[in-house]
């Protein structure tokens, strides 16, 4: 610990932080530089790839020292970081849409191999049709495999969460891959003012990645991923289950330490509540829809309608108990999915299904949960959309029957 850590938080911030007008992708590039990442693999696909353009610029300018490898496809991209990580390198990688899906074999094996990859997913609609706009189905494709998944809604949060993700993923109790989801265009390509912490602060927050006896090295001879039969597979899965059992405690611990060192407070790490204290109903969603949601909430409150917004930050682990505890007090809930889960119960999106499941086992009362499919393929989730959804949730609170899943902002 350096002596300057003893300074009051406000004092430290003044000395060390720099403010810059940067995109969400650029914010994550800065996090990679600050985290002193060793191996980075790139392959172009919009919208995540701007992060690689910023990183390659940092490397070219001599500001960052790392192995910057341009792979011949996403599958190799993720294979390279997987292997580098096993050898003890801190890595960064990322993709979008079908690029992420092309890497699926590697994404699948990474959690069992206990490699703390940190990746950025620039959320993009899955082709076909070829589309560049945001949808969350790409990152959600790994939701059952042991990945940690979070969604951020600002450049600042992108930078901070990247640092937090390294700390969480590389915690010996975890050692699982983590993806930071950034809405395509709305976050990846939008510039906002971001406070960039100093290298010293990050050094204090982020210890060296130490793989211990899992390190693949001539001095530590191990064999990784041998063939196994039914005598072993279930025990290996149970080990990953143990990670999910302790994930929330580790994440909470890391956020507390983040606050101590950087002085920025995120409150509950798993979800953020906006004007929910006295709300009758709430909307819940992930990612950048929070901006128009906050505007809509304020507008509706001016009309005397007590509505709030809950933004889910960590989708995996899913803080089911806490979310149920938060939501059980409202008269009705509307979950906005920027994704689809065709054929699911009530034909809802992924988040609505998870929220209902969490409520069923954890909530003391079960208010109606409406599901809304909105903003697919990069379509905006507008303030009028949110007003319409809120109206429907109020109707549900009154007991008016309506479909459990509704498409909002759809022509026809």
């Amino acid at each position, binding site marked *: 610990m350096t002596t300057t850590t003893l300074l009051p938080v406000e004092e430290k911030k003044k000395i060390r932080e720099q403010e810059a007008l940067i995109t969400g992708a650029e914010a994550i590039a800065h996090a990679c530089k600050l985290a002193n990442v060793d191996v980075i693999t790139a392959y172009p696909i919009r919208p995540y790839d701007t992060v690689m353009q910023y990183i390659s610029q940092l490397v070219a300018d001599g500001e960052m020292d790392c192995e910057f490898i341009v792979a011949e496809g996403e599958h190799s991209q993720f294979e390279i970081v997987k292997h580098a990580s096993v050898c003890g390198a801190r890595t960064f990688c990322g993709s979008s849409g079908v690029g992420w899906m092309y890497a699926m074999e590697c994404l699948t094996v990474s959690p069992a191999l206990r490699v703390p990859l940190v990746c950025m997913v620039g959320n993009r609609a899955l082709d076909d049709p070829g589309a560049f706009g945001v949808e969350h189905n790409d990152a959600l494709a790994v939701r059952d495999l042991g990945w940690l998944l979070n969604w951020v809604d600002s450049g600042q949060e992108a930078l901070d969460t990247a640092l937090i993700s390294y700390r969480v993923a590389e915690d010996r109790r975890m050692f699982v891959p983590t993806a930071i989801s950034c809405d395509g265009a709305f976050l990846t390509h939008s510039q906002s003012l971001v406070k960039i912490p100093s290298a010293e602060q990050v050094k204090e927050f982020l210890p060296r990645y130490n793989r211990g006896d*899992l390190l693949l090295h001539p001095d530590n001879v191990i064999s990784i991923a041998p063939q*196994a*039969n039914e005598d072993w597979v279930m025990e290996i899965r149970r080990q990953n289950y143990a990670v999910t059992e302790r994930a929330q405690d580790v994440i909470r611990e890391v956020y507390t330490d983040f606050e101590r060192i950087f002085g920025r407070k995120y409150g509950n790490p798993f979800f953020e509540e906006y004007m929910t204290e006295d709300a009758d109903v709430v909307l819940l969603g992930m990612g950048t829809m929070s901006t128009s949601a906050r505007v809509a909430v304020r507008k509706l409150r001016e009309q005397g309608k007590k509505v709030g917004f809950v933004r889910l930050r960590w989708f995996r682990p899913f803080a089911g108990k806490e979310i149920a505890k938060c939501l059980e007090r409202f008269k009705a809930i509307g979950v906005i999915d920027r994704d689809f889960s065709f054929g699911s119960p009530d034909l809802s999106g992924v988040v609505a299904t998870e929220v209902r499941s969490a409520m069923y086992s954890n909530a003391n009362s079960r208010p109606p949960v409406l599901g809304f499919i909105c903003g697919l393929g990069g379509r905006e989730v507008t303030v009028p959309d949110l007003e319409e959804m809120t109206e429907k949730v109020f109707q549900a609170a009154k007991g008016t029957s309506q479909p459990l899943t509704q498409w909002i902002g759809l022509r026809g």
Partner: protein
Amino acid sequence: MGQLLAVEIIYRGVFQKTLAKNITRGIVLAAHNEGKLGVSFGRYGDAPERNGIPAKGFAIVASDEQTLEAGMAQYEPKAVDVSVVLDDTLSKGAESWAWYGLRPVNGSLKPGRTLIVVSQQEVSDLLKLIHRRPEPYKLGILKGITSFSGMWVYKDDHTDVRVLGAIAKALPELVSLKSIEQYISDKLKDPLKVTSAHNAFDRFTASEVKPNQGNPEELPHHELLHWQDMRLGVSIKGQPQGGPFKDPVTKELGGFRPARNELFKKYSTRTARPVINFSTCTKCTLCWLNCPDGSFDVTPDGTYDINLESCSGCGICEAVCPVKNCINMVHESQFDNNDSQWVSFRKDKTAYLKNLEKTIKTAEPIAERSQGFRYRGQYKEQVPAALEVARKA
């Protein structure tokens, strides 16, 4: 609960997969002629179908539907009424790709039941190899050339129907010869095959094996760990590097022997082994470099000795060796141990080389050894010879 009977076929991956399947299907269809019900299945966990790897197929037959279901409620029968070994070199034990380690071929057999081995050897030869067990059982040899096919084309040499005939003799309550014959006439439509099955039935006999009679080798036991005790990251401790070892004559240390997994030996995959002439070896390193299993030891005198517990018998060393007759693949039936060839050579060169000359004579030329199908009509040409061996029995 009615009557439930199970048959296990132990075969060599790829080379005998169709043969094994034909036998288990034949059992079920023939028994069905008697109004019984059954299922035939392969255990793919044991059979990733790599060349020569020991694998298993099963047939279970029941008197009624509920009894059959009771049999199907476990994936693999733990105790069987007949075990069939389709290649006698498997008598040394079967080690699958999984972590079970080497297992005896009579391990699943119920006491008093019959083990059938397709072989040209005698019972006394096979009992040197087949592991002893505390309960008595019967061992019968179905005389015949081991039937091997390639990946794609099946060699239809009557081994399937001959095994069916032997099974009807060994376990008449499973299926009668008449039902077998009816199945062959109805489904395979080949009168010659009916005769083959009938002859096999007539000629097959099984003799009593007493408790603890057989190969006294103790097989290693593998412990299954709890999840909390297993290493993370699907990783296992690697083998240490290995090092030099003693020359049996001079007692001096030299050479290099890599450390190898004590529980996973691979040799049960082998039907032939390399036999090395250390006196003509030029120390060119090619066998050592090309061996896909790292099975060669560098001896203190700089030649290369094959480790016969590790060798899977692929024959690559023979193919790359530039010296004529320095490495020859010889059929596994010629040997009953995995001892070091180099140690025997060092101890008595003359005796070793004399024995070598003898074994090399039994080695087939490489061109005739492939299991693959190389030209149309090839397998058909080989069938008369196979039937002749069976007839002489």
